[in-house]
């Protein structure tokens, strides 16, 4: 983000934490996402159809969870950083909170995007880091796990 200070390759060590990012998925979020990307699979808004597919009820789009993790990574590497690779696997389903009013969600779970640096190296003239990234739901389960590779600016 703009207000944050730029992260440099020299600031990072193996084991460094990626700055965590918290998120709340609501039924409203899912409607927005569906419209924004054109994903109108009913398992994301129709409880009875989701139940018939053994999902319990409507579930959060995997691609939205993926985008949360990408946001955490791009926030952390800052504007001078470049995301080179990103991958994630969906390990479990998540259920959105309902809305209490047109703007406020009901009480419920909060999700946390988290990550840790696993490798620091130079490649192709770039100063790079590899990270493990994951999404933790309100029950502490890791429902999405992945990896990110980014090029960071260097003070040298």
């Amino acid at each position, binding site marked *: *983000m*703009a207000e944050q200070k730029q992260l440099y390759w020299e600031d990072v060590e193996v084991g460094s934490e990626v700055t965590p990012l918290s*998120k709340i998925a609501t039924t409203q*979020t899912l409607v*927005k*996402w569906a*419209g*924004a*990307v*054109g*994903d*109108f*699979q*009913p398992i994301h808004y129709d409880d009875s159809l989701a139940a018939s*597919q*053994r999902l319990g009820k409507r579930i959060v*789009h*995997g*691609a*939205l969870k*993926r*985008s*949360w993790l*990408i*946001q955490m990574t*791009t*926030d952390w590497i800052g*504007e*001078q950083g*470049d*995301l*080179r*690779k*990103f*991958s*994630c*696997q*969906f390990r479990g389903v998540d259920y959105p909170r309902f809305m209490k009013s047109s703007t406020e969600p009901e009480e419920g779970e909060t999700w946390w995007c988290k990550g840790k640096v696993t490798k620091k190296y130079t490649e192709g003239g770039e100063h790079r880091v590899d990270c493990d990234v994951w999404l933790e739901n309100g029950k502490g389960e890791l429902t999405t796990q*992945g990896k990110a590779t980014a090029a960071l600016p260097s003070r040298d």
Partner: protein
Amino acid sequence: MLPEEVAKLIGKAGETVVMEVEKGAIKRIADAIGDSNPLYWDEEYARNSRCGGIIAPPGFTGWPAKWRWNLYLFYMPQYSDLYREWVDAMDKAGYTGRLDGGWEFDFFQLVRAGDTLACTPKITDIVERQGKSGTLTLTTFEMTYINQNGDVVSKTRNNMIYRSRS
């Protein structure tokens, strides 16, 4: 063992779909993510940044060429006719419980508002795996996105899962 009508899809490429990366689409997706990064929102800020203009969040490769088939269930329209053909083949072979298994991106260039991207999808693999609750069938789609300058901006792989077969 994969049924023949499914196995024969391995290696098949779909037709190339061309899509425009619209500014409004970038804002809508950034809003849905809850990402207030000014590079997606603020024209002037973005112009004066190292990016030189509004960019799309990594992983967003453009407003899909949707409504083309008028199929409400057309889940990931950028897969073009290939996705439809695959869904039909899997349905016919009795596979059920389709879920998104995961994604893998290589990013080579920034995607900018106003870019025109050509996406060619391909089914690179279909395999069976033993999961917690039985046999899972994994299909890997690979999409190559090329911009108006002929540069490959991203390669994206998506694993789709079918959880059972009747």
